[in-house]
């Protein structure tokens, strides 16, 4: 664990130490369920990098529309592709898109928010009004707009999702950083001769790390949902690359012929998003004990 995260975990549990942390982690049902779901989701994506039951793009027309069997655990689709292999490859796609998109939002949003909090004045005003502007568009709508302008594709959908993540992180960082900037140890740091940049990195960010971590898990879930939505509309990942959203789209016309083609990708999206949300919720309870007591 990096020192700043360890530090915020330490501060969160105060003097009771790691035992208390473990107890509250095990005691939080949402954290455990969410953690198991998220871990298995990531494990499946990692496994797909080295192994899938069948080659993902292997089209064997004679074996199409098969039901659940020992050979094909979840059946096959209209081209005879193995559904398990497609879902596993789709998980990789979701994870990659979500990591890059959230990373983009984090990498741009956090510095902007920290800058706004450190400088205040007109710069703060300009940044935050630009933020409000970006916030005013529904996320998926702006993603549709961006992909419509730049053309559909996996890269463009990542950028589109990343852009709607920026204001989320910028706003969260600014709000939390403003509170930290009022604390006396910031004055102590300024007295020690540190400039705003050093103070932001060394004193402000470690203190808001727990908030950011929780927000990352939630944005991760939203990014998976957004990617599925864009692919469903045909604006995201393009064939032959597998994607959960695209699988849903293709299954739509075959709903009554082969309902499992829609049910399984749909369940995959729902379970991974649910898992990440529960995980984030549980994490917040553990990292911020004050919040837990208020409930």
């Amino acid at each position, binding site marked *: 664990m990096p020192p700043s995260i360890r530090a915020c975990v330490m501060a969160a549990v105060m003097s009771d130490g790691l035992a208390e942390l473990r107890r509250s982690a095990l005691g939080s049902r949402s954290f455990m369920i969410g953690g198991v779901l998220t871990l298995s989701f990531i494990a499946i994506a990692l496994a797909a990098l080295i192994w899938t039951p069948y080659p993902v793009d292997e089209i064997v027309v004679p074996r199409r529309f098969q039901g659940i069997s020992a050979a094909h655990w979840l059946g096959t689709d209209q081209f005879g592709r193995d559904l398990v292999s497609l879902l596993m490859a789709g998980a990789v796609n979701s994870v990659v898109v979500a990591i890059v998109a959230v990373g983009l939002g984090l990498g741009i949003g956090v510095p902007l928010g920290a800058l706004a909090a450190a400088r205040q004045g007109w710069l703060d005003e300009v940044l935050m009004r630009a933020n409000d502007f970006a916030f005013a568009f529904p996320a998926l709508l702006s993603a549709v707009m961006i992909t419509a302008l730049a053309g559909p594709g996996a890269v463009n959908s990542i950028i589109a999702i990343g852009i709607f993540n920026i204001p989320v992180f910028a706003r969260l960082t600014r709000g939390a950083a403003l509170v930290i900037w009022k604390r006396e140890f910031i004055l102590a740091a*300024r007295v020690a001769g540190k400039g705003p940049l050093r103070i932001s990195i060394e004193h402000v960010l470690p*203190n808001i790390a727990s908030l950011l971590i929780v927000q990352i898990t939630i944005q991760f879930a939203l990014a998976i949902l957004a990617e599925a939505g864009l692919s469903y509309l045909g604006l995201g990942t393009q064939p032959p690359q597998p994607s959960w959203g695209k699988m849903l789209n293709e299954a739509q016309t075959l709903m009554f012929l082969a309902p499992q083609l829609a049910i399984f990708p749909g369940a995959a999206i729902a379970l991974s998003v649910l898992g990440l949300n529960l995980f984030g919720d549980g994490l917040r309870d553990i990292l911020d004990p004050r919040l837990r007591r208020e409930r």
Partner: protein
Amino acid sequence: MALLSIENLCVETGDPEAAYRLLDGVNLSLSRGECLGLVGESGCGKSMTALAIMGLLPRGMRARGRILLDGEDLITAGEERLCALRGRKVAMVFQEPMTALNPVVPIGRQVAEGLRLHLGLTRHEAEQRAAHSLGRVGLSTDRFPLSLFPHQLSGGQRQRVVIAMALTCGPELLVADEPTTALDVTVQAQILDLIDEIVEEYGMGLILITHDLGIVAQSTDSMAVMYAGRVVEEGPTAEVFAQMAHPYTRGLFAAMPSHATGSGAATGSRTETPRQRLVTIPGRVADASFRPEGCPFVSRCGFATDHCSSEKPLMRALAQGHGAACLNLSPEGDVR
């Protein structure tokens, strides 16, 4: 040459035309190895003076006059120069050790950061120096490893960390803003002794801000009494204590809770001494938005005469280095 010399320092806020004066013509001077006590009640401008020296006045406040540190004016110095001076030549100890330390950064790193910033030491060198500084303030690393977090220390130990942070780069001027107010009495004495020792050892100048006259008597060479943004009496501590020329200084001393048998003893037997009410100065500090033309203390002063509310009292010399700003002072230092 004086280490620090403050000349006619004014701090204002609000519109330039109708500005509130939070500090109004403060003059102070301090040489190396000397300890200056700054006393006065809440809101009189003690902390504002400290922040002005640090160049860290809150947004919207402007400082005028001169603050000369080793002959260099801090008011006209740019932010970059101030950053280089803060922590290196001027350091500060805060009132609340609970909040002056970052809760999520280990104490060793908090002390070492200043060294890396100002002296350009490597991480390893800085940590060694930090361990030395912490040892100097009584937190030796065998019992207090550098990896401890502030919440694992007591209040007094935290204040020691804050002092270690302040002294680590060997500053020439230390500003201690009520360093013992948040600590309990037994720890107060230890922390004051520690500050005294360090000031002597490093030969730095110390500005000790406090409202505890006992601390002033014990630790300072000279003192300045502030009221409503002005220095109303200043001089060698012994001299001020002996004479108490300004009516406000007398009020402050009279308001000090004491175990001495004053009027209580006069009433008779020791065991049945009635509880005395604490002496107070009537009224409160005039708000910065409507300070009177003349003496700011006029509404609370028992000696006030007509011209007190119209004429601004200037500092009058009474004896060597001792002065008070009161219109009713006789040359001998008695209030008429």
